[in-house]
Structure formats: C-alpha cells, structure tokens
C-alpha cells in the first residue's frame, strides 16, 4: 500500500474531516469545477533512514503537503484544524502493509486566495506534515 492510499484511509476514518470534504481529497491536483471545501495533497519527498546492510531501508519519513481550500477564511481555518486533528498523531497505526509510526505537523502557511474556474474564491491554508513510515 502506498502512503497516498494510507492517507485516504486515515481521512475516511476521521468523521469530522470526512463529513467536511467527503471524497474531495485529491492527490496532486483537483478536478476542474471542484466543489469546496476540498484538500489537495502531495507527497513530494520521502527520505529513507539509511543504514549499512539495507539496500532498501524500511524506515522513512515523508513530507506530506496538504492544501486546504474553502469558500471563506473561517471555513478554511476550520478545515485546516480538522485536517490537523485527523492526521497529526503519535499513535502508531497499521494501514494496509504500512506502519505509520507517527505524523507530526512541520509547518503551516497561509496560502492566500485563489480564483477558481467556477469564478469563485478559494481560501487556502497549507499544512506540511512529516510522516514516519515503516514498510511491512
């Protein structure tokens, strides 16, 4: 199982976040005409914990970027808070073949406002997480 799939599973398991965005949890980009609120997420880097004798080390930490889009500034803050509560945890969990040893918030950035193709404003808050992962 990829980390992306594990993130979707974690999102679905959190009732607060799932009720806010339902299936609008998109990898890389959102589809045209997207409904708000939604989250667009990326896993840009995954650094493996190298040690001698392990050509493919099992332990790694991945950076997960979550772009939280909502129709108002208040809704954006609520969405970011829900995402933070859903993902930032040190409770180890096994999702598929991945052991998630913990996910911590690394950084939080106000992303301003974007204009969508539907001619509506989307307020953006960006969350940077660091996920500590052990492959099965």
């Amino acid at each position, binding site marked *: 199982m990829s980390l992306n799939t594990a993130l979707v599973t974690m999102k679905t398991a959190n009732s607060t976040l799932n009720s806010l965005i339902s299936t609008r949890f998109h990898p*890389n*980009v*959102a589809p*045209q005409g*997207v409904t708000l609120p*939604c989250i*667009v997420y*990326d896993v*840009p*880097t995954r*650094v493996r914990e190298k040690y001698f004798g392990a050509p493919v080390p099992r332990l790694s930490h991945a*950076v997960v*970027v979550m*772009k939280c*889009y909502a129709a108002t500034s208040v809704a954006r803050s609520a969405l970011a808070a829900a995402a933070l509560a859903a993902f930032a945890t040190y409770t180890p969990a096994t999702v598929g073949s991945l052991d998630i040893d913990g996910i911590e918030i690394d950084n939080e950035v106000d*992303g301003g406002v*974007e204009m*969508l*193709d539907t001619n509506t404003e*989307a307020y*953006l808050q*960006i969350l940077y997480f660091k996920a500590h992962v052990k492959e099965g």
Partner: protein
Amino acid sequence: MIQGMQGLLDSMEALPYSLQKNLIVRELRKGGQVIADEAARIAPRDDNDDDGFHMADSMMVVVSDQTFEGAVAKIGPSRKGYYGIFTEIGTIYVAGKHWLRRAFDSRIEEVTRTIGEGLGRAIEKEMKRL
C-alpha cells in the same frame, strides 16, 4: 545529525559573544548555500524567457535574527523571482513541483554536517588565537 553538538556549543562559550555570532552566521550561510545551489539546479527554468532573467539563477541565502545562540537562514529566489512560489506549491489545478522542499530534504544532512564541521574548525582556530 551532528555528533558532539553539545560539546561544540559548550566550547563556543569560551569565545567572545560577537565572535560566536559571527561564526554562527558564517557557517550558517555556507550551509544554506548548499541548499540554495541544489534549489538552483532543480528549479524550473524557462530558456525562452525574453528578459534573460531566470528565477533559478537568483537563489539567495539571507541570515537574520543572529544571536550568540543561533540564527535564521532564509533560502529562496530574489524578489524578482517571486513567482517561484507558484511552481513550488502549485495551485488548485496545477501540481506543485516542490523544488525548494526537495532541495532542503535532499541536502539537509550534508548541511548539518558542513555546519558542525565548520564550527568545529573555526572554534579550534579561534581558541588557538585567544
């Protein structure tokens, strides 16, 4: 991770404050340059640009908030390359390329080692002078 970092910091206390600040700034700038160089290498570059300016060529390291305990290094393109933010994080319909994040994550180990070794050498040199 830097081995013996606490010992390094303890030995720095024997130096005058102004010298401690200068050493930290100098080594942090050197370390930051490693990330800036990698960012310049992997940042998007439009070779058909008319004005001849390339955001990738304008990477800077600015060190601020320096005290004898630490400082902050800000790394990124110059003001003229402000649009780098759009390729870094993308938009709702355009995927981010995360070139600055990738530069940071791929070089941070080398940077911490460079700073640790550089500080060690500088402290030794200054101690001999005192």
